């Protein structure tokens, strides 16, 4: 008996993989049904529906890049502390000292790539009319995922705590100041007052909520860190699950039923 046979006839192996290798038609079907990750896919698909010239693979790549960002992000969290005292220096040591500091490069370029990939995915889905019934709802879920992807990237932008970071976030979050009714420089905010005392001011408006202060500060860093590492990824993960599940329930990636 060869080593390979010994491994495959072992109780441990058999307890994990309950069927032979997917070499014949039957087992190629069974493998899709018995593996939790593979069963995100259907068992069979239309041949034209998986052609690269049709799908561009952009949805799949967006998901893969999300996984890359998750893995590199978790590892980066070991080296990074979101405080005014440490943030910048931790990035410096990631660059200069830490073994595998390239993690930060991969995380940053992967984030850019994810933004590009998700745009191209939406572009393809639109151009093939794949949002049409019965897939209307899943398109809307996809739009939310797109917004969350941009927010993930935006919140991550602040974390290096360099000039690029705080000024980009300052420029971006200044918009919240002008939110109608909810920003202190927004139209209608002055109407929200009690006996002339304004409810919406620079210490209570939408921007204050976003930044945790009247300007980008240590509180903002903590807030963005938690959003970036915990809150948004959790929301994205749940929505991805819905997105994939609906692809299958709505009868594949595109085409009338």
């Amino acid at each position, binding site marked *: 008996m060869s080593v390979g046979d010994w491994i495959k006839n072992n109780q441990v192996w058999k307890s994990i993989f309950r069927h032979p290798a*997917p070499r014949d*038609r039957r087992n190629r*079907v069974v493998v899709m049904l018995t593996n939790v990750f*593979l069963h995100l*896919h259907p*068992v069979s*698909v*239309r*041949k*034209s529906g*998986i*052609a*690269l010239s049709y799908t*561009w693979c952009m949805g*799949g790549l967006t998901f893969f*890049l999300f996984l890359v960002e998750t893995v590199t992000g978790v590892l980066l969290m070991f080296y990074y502390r979101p405080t005014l005292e440490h943030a*910048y220096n931790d*990035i*410096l040591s990631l*660059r200069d000292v830490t073994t595998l500091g*390239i993690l930060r*490069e*991969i995380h940053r*370029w992967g984030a850019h*790539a994810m933004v*590009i990939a998700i745009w*191209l995915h*939406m*572009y*393809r889905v639109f151009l*093939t*009319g*794949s*949002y*049409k019934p019965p*897939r209307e709802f899943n*398109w*809307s879920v996809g*739009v939310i995922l797109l917004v969350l992807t941009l927010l993930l*990237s935006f919140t991550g932008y602040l974390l290096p*705590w*360099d*000039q*690029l970071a*705080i*000024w*980009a976030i*300052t*420029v971006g979050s200044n918009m*919240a*100041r*002008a939110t109608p009714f909810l*920003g202190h420089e927004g*139209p*209608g905010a*002055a*109407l929200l007052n009690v006996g002339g005392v304004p409810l919406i001011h620079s210490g209570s408006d939408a921007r204050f909520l976003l930044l945790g202060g009247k300007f980008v500060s240590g509180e903002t860093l903590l807030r963005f860190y938690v959003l970036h590492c915990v809150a948004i990824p959790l929301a994205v993960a749940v929505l991805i699950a819905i997105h994939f599940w609906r692809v299958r329930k709505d009868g594949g990636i*595109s*085409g*009338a039923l």
Partner: protein
Amino acid sequence: MAHGSLTSPVQNGLGVYYILCALMSVGFGVYQVRQRSRFAALLAFAWAGLFGFHAAAYLAHQGWVIPHSVTHLVDAYTNAISYFVVSTVAFAVLLIFRKPLTEPNVAWTLMNLTLLAFGWSLTNYDFRDIVAKPDNVPIVMLLAAVGYFTWLPLRRAVLNDDLIAAGKPVLEKDDEKVLVWPDLVYTELIAMIICTAILVVWGILLKAPLEAPATTARAPNPSKAPWYFLGLQEMLVYYDPWMAGVVLPTFIVIGLMAIPYIDFNQKGNGYYTFKERPFALIMFLYGFLVLWVVLIVLGTFLRGPNWNFFGPFETWDAHKVDPLNNVNLSDMFWLGLGSTPEQIAKAYGWFVREIPGIILTVLYFVAIPPLMAKTVFRNFFVKMGFLRYMTLMTLILFMTSLPLKMVLRWTLNLKYIVYIPEYFFNI
């Protein structure tokens, strides 16, 4: 480094760039030989020769710099107006002449011309300074990807439209089913490996930027949002933050989510086509390509200190002065009647002062939809019903308000249509 000179790393980089271009052309030539298309093969090899010549020159450090006569000419004629107008015209030309333009040999030639122009431009110090910033590299990649992924679906749409006209099944039509294992899972595996490899190489070649420690004491000029929001930041030139930064982005998101509920056209589901859904495609492509990507490029590469416009080869001079003498609609109106807006406001209050703009704005949103429903959109209105139609029109009116405001700014120097600083309500 002195302007107008090429360092050896730059020459080496350009050499590698031209080698890659030449290799692509060789590949295309070999493909054409196999297709037995002699002229196309000859053309491809001629391109390969041209790129190869460039590669040899730059690798031997004998490369040349793009002539100043050219860069000065380009800078002299590019400004926010010409850039946006040319982009819009190019977009229209692309859609109207999509058949000849997406023909592989034509598209290939256009791409090579672009690559050549990009290579020559990179020899200019100021161009390179902006384009080669680590955080701007993704935008160059985005442009290449958007170019390719606009050609591909348009090409397939042209082919499919011909097939449909001839009564034949479209390219994507087949009833053959394949098993996901191995056909799809292996494609996914290969895609993941290639993606990982690209990320690792990218990470090794290009260090993630890290600037000086954050300080609120010194603001960089220009201060820019992350690149994917620069289209929105560009809108700030024409709109106040509450519109450009809050209302319009909200409408973009709502509008995108509403698309499947507005589009009643059941055709074109699952294949590329243009003729079966021209309206949906024109609207979406204009929004994505011109109002989003073109504005991002403008905001990233062509907006310098103080958000002034700079030509692609122009030095970002923080002291450049661009006189702004924009006026409000109420100024024009009341001054035209021999009064001043201040006098009107004093006598009758701000509402009367701004009444021309308020009427125009209300008319824009209230009068245009029924007018269109009676005329050009008669079919839409009948098929969509009131609610769908009004949603569509509101979204379209918000979308077109941006190019409209741009044109008003360029032609009439119009600042605000409605100007009520008392309530931060400026449109």
